[in-house]
């Protein structure tokens, strides 16, 4: 053992020896091992059951959240993919009427309408002009 206070990076065998003797367990080594092993199954059981409970508790709200996300995603996707249908104009005047602003709604409605204007409305307007 060294008496100088400087730090030594190696273990001190003398100090280690007396400390080891001072800390040596009192009881029988084999008895301690048996005591630990007697708790083996119980420790594993205790660890497994709460873990499954936790997983189950996560599972239920997880399913609810996933279902809600699916429904929300479906509705959102449908709203994006479905084109907005402009109402077909009731008459050619309505279709050709000047807009209140540039690029007006009447012309826009005719151009963007999915359904063509009714043919009778178009012919009627031509006959009236003659």
């Amino acid at each position: 053992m060294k008496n100088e206070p400087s730090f030594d990076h190696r273990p001190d065998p003398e100090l280690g020896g007396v400390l080891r003797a001072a800390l040596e367990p009192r009881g029988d080594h084999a008895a301690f091992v048996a005591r630990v092993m007697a708790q083996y199954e119980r420790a594993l059981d205790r660890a497994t059951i709460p873990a499954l409970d936790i997983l189950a508790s996560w599972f239920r709200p997880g399913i609810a959240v996933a279902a809600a996300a699916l429904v929300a995603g479906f509705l959102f996707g449908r709203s994006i993919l479905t084109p907005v249908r402009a109402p077909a104009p009731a008459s050619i005047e309505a279709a050709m009427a000047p807009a209140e602003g540039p690029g007006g709604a009447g012309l826009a409605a005719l151009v963007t309408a999915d359904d063509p204007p009714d043919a009778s409305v178009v012919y009627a307007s031509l006959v009236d002009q003659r």
Partner: protein
Amino acid sequence: MGNSPEDKDLVAQTLSGERDAFGVLVERYAAQARRVARAVLGDPDDADDAAQDGFLSALVKLAQYDARRPFGPWLMRIVANAATDRRRRRTVRRAEPLDTSLVGGGPRPDAAAVRSELGDRLRSALAELPERRRTAVVLFDVEGYSHAEIAGILGIPEGTVRSEVFHARRRLRTLLADWKEQAR
């Protein structure tokens, strides 16, 4: 120092359900775990309870063990934590500091005399050291762990480990020198 390939093999066998493999690990590390726990707690019965808690906790966490690293420091960290937890609970329960009368582990036969007296003195001296300091010196000088391994076990920087070992040694060496002087 517990870094033999058998340790990781035993861990793998335990994880595959071989109870006896864990028994070999307990057999191998029991004495060390009990000493480390006793360094933290002082009382040998409490220390055995903590060492047992440590082994069973390690069993439950065995899948988290990284087989590329030595098993001993991983296990000792769990044992030291179990001992510290037990000491905190005991301190709260008793609302008093470590009882040095417990450190000697109860009455001893007179026949043990000289060695026993030194042991009692060392245990008392250890009990007066801060917990981290006495654990560090025991891990270094008794169990032979490196500073880096002790840093991992105690969760502190390596430089702090060196400092703790240095201060603990200074106190214990003084005590040992006094005892030798008296014995002459």
